[in-house]
């Protein structure tokens, strides 16, 4: 390749940045995380002629300061990486706020390819952008696009292919003299800490966190004081005002409005008078959530069953009772099956989330749910993942990536495992069927409530310990409604499902193999029998569970198998107690109503399954996954013991 270009794609959230990125990269895509954080990083390499372009999608932001994770990533990438240019995607219908970001990136002294996206929407709203004037003012070509329909992308490629001739923007904002002077002074005195005018301004207006250096801090405070002497407000306000003034001056020259802004938001406003209405907003939200839940789990289930049946059929093809046959059946095939079984619901979920996000409803849902979730110490957007937890914890935890704030992502992901997923229901049903025939609903319902209470308590306690200062603000744009793109949604769902299979899949597969080994070794023992390693572990563990009322080795082994998936607990108990048919009577004699209750509490609370751990590890890191395992096992055990002992004390069972 004769030439290699690295190009960042930046822009406000909801500016159509992702569509532009998708149009440019097509299928050449690499998805990962930004180093050290769990924010999704997408890059795509495209070869045109003898030139290779690597596009990096940086997080959508409104500003560039070190005060939020997304903005810090964007800023670090833009300042530290060797970029040839930045494509700045601007929502044409929302020129001012979008252009503010353009100006910030321009202040960084980077080469810019500005893209005026959604130009059709702007036209419809009576807004005309004079591209020629903008290009003339800044001396760089502005490109008009409608990324959702692929319009203007060839023009963008034209600019990209001639990137060698692209200059830096000519026109720039000059701040009042004292500000410029202070910026120069800072750069002169601290050439190591402050390497650019942009950084100097950031230090002055508080956008960049000042390093722990007495001298540096003193000088900065002095300079800030000096400038603030001559004005009535704060310096950060002054700088933001000047930036907006600059934007207004450009808008005055280049943006023509035929209708007032009132009419521009009229349609969205009318929809919102119903959708986020004080009285209807809640019910509409609950209906939307019910629909989401229904589609993900009910519509997804037949596919899950096909996959299950397919893998059972595949296993039954492997005959024989030797260790090799067992390895293929219980190890390999069920390992792959354990990963693939989540694919339908994850795909449907992310498809629907993309549709909700694209249409503009996701932000509204967060708006409606926020008061309630905020009272629980979480963010409005945490509602969706928490709710999905009732269906399956895996897609639920994956859905935390729709949260913007890292603290919210962590707390939500740590709380979700206590939401009683559908895999735990078979265990409850087995036990209530035997012991609580007259109070089935009450008992099962109280377990669900217990799960919710634990989730809230865990979230609150973790917030207290790890994120004391963290109240992430709900300063969120409600984008104008528009018709969502099926194509974008499919792509987004495909990317995230692929991410799950590749990143979490290996871990899940490995865990299945480990459990198989424990159950089959030493060679020659019956699968999961008392003589197998797992059986011996179970026997050794059994006394530990005596205070909780279920000290049989079978119960312990069933709980170990429960790591794979909670419904496996039922199947394992069936095998160990001599077949499904006699299971009910065996349980009736092995457990009492009280120990059944404590066993169900244990099942609810301890680690949902290895897949959940794999996903937590992927989404928020190994440290948190380990903590989640530790907390849930301890909590499950303590609560089970508590239930049993309290019951005995009260004379029940």
């Amino acid at each position: 390749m004769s030439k290699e270009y690295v190009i960042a794609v930046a822009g406000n959230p909801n500016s159509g940045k992702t569509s532009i990125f998708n149009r440019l990269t097509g299928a050449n895509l690499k998805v990962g995380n930004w180093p050290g954080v769990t924010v999704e990083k997408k890059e795509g390499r495209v070869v045109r002629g003898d030139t290779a372009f690597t596009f990096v999608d940086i997080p959508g932001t409104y500003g560039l300061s070190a005060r939020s994770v997304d903005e810090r990533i964007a800023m670090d990438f833009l300042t530290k990486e060797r970029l040839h240019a930045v494509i700045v995607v601007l929502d044409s219908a929302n020129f001012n706020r979008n252009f503010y970001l353009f100006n910030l990136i321009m202040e960084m002294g980077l080469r810019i390819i500005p893209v005026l996206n959604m130009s059709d929407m702007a036209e419809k709203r009576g807004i005309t952008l004079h591209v020629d004037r903008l290009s003339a003012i800044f001396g760089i070509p502005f490109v008009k696009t409608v990324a959702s329909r692929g319009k203007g992308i060839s023009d963008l490629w034209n600019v990209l292919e001639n990137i060698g001739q692209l200059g830096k923007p000519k026109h720039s904002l000059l701040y009042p003299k004292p500000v410029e002077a202070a910026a120069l002074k800072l750069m002169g005195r601290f050439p190591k800490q402050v390497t650019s005018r942009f950084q100097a301004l950031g230090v002055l207006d508080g956008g960049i966190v000042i390093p722990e250096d007495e001298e540096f801090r003193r000088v900065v405070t002095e300079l800030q004081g000096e400038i603030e002497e001559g004005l009535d407000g704060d310096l950060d306000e002054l700088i933001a005002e000047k930036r907006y003034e600059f934007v207004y001056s450009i808008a005055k020259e280049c943006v023509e409005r035929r209708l007032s802004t009132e009419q521009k938001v009229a349609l969205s406003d009318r929809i919102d008078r119903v959708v986020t209405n004080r009285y209807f907003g809640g019910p509409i939200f609950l209906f939307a959530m019910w629909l989401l839940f229904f589609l993900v789990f009910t519509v997804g289930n037949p596919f899950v069953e096909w996959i299950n049946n397919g893998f059972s059929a595949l296993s039954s093809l492997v005959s024989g009772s030797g260790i090799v046959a067992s390895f293929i059946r219980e190890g390999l095939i069920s390992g792959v099956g354990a990963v693939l079984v989540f694919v339908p619901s994850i795909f449907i979920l992310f498809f629907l989330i993309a549709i909700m996000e694209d249409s503009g409803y996701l932000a509204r849902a967060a708006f409606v749910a926020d008061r309630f979730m905020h009272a629980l110490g979480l963010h409005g957007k945490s509602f969706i993942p928490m709710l999905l937890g009732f269906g399956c914890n895996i897609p639920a935890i994956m859905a935390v990536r729709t949260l913007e704030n890292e603290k919210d992502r962590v707390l939500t992901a740590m709380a979700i495992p206590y939401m009683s997923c559908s895999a735990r229901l078979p265990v409850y049903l087995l036990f209530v069927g035997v012991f609580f025939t007259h109070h089935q609903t009450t008992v099962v319902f109280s377990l669900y409530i217990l799960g919710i209470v634990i989730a809230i308590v865990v979230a609150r306690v973790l917030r207290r310990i790890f994120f004391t200062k963290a109240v992430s603000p709900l300063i969120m744009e409600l984008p104008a409604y528009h018709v969502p793109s099926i194509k974008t949604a499919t792509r987004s769902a495909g990317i995230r499902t692929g991410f799950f299979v590749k990143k979490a899949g290996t871990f899940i597969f490995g865990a299945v193999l480990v459990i198989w080994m424990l159950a089959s070794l030493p060679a020659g023992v019956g699968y999961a029998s008392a003589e197998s390693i797992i059986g011996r572990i179970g026997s050794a563990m059994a006394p530990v569970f005596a205070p909780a009322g279920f000290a049989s080795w079978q119960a312990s082994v069933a709980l170990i198998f429960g790591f794979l998936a909670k419904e496996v607990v039922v199947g394992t108990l069936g095998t160990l107690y001599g077949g499904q048919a006699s299971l009910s009577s065996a349980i009736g004699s092995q457990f009492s109503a009280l120990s059944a209750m404590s066993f169900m509490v244990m099942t609810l609370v301890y680690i949902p399954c290895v897949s959940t751990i794999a996903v937590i590890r992927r989404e928020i890191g190994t440290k948190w996954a380990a903590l989640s395992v530790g907390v849930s096992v301890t909590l499950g055990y303590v609560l089970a013991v508590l239930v049993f002992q309290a019951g005995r004390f009260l004379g029940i069972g």
Partner: protein
Amino acid sequence: MLTHTAEDYLERIYLLSLRLGSVKTSDIANEFGIRTPSVISALKLLKEKGFVHYQKYGAVVLSEKGMEKALDVYDRHKTSYRFLRFVLGVPDSTASSDACGMEHVISSETVAAMKDFFSFLTSKKDEGVDIQKEFQEVRRKRLGSGNEKEKRGENIGEDCPLSVVKDRIPCKVLKLNGTREVKRRLLDMGVIPGETVEIRNRGPMGFPIEILIQGYVLTLRKDEAEFVIVREE
């Protein structure tokens, strides 16, 4: 010792020179709402004391000594005003007129202490403790029913946080408070002094609110709306 009016003159000339570049006697007369001849006689006195350079029909320029004095008075005014307005939460008009009186009598020692208190507040805010806000809340509660005006949202012409404004009433943003993180975010999203905002809609329990700014819609929780000081238009 200067009389109050002399200090007022110097301060006013300084501010006018910032705004207009060069200051004429008629500008000063306009500012004070008095006639030009009275200004001229006052300027003669100031010139005698060496505070201003002034020729008939020419521009009024502060001497080095006058500039020093003007800066000092203005600093005392500004610090007093900020203390009253943003620490104590006194309404803009009261803070302004009180500051005009205080600037002449307040000692530099007290001014320095006020400044220290500002930086103390800022550092607390960075740690996530908003003493100002806590104090405002306590005070609002104590004023309680006595402050019916605020409750009913009848604050036309008075500064108030956006959180007490009624729906669909256009307001002008005057000032932003709050932690750096929140303030930064608001500024970046176009909530800047001078812009017009309007509450468009409310969440199920009255908060969060949807506001219209710069032609688009933004959501704010109650805490965040309290940081935005506005005046109804």
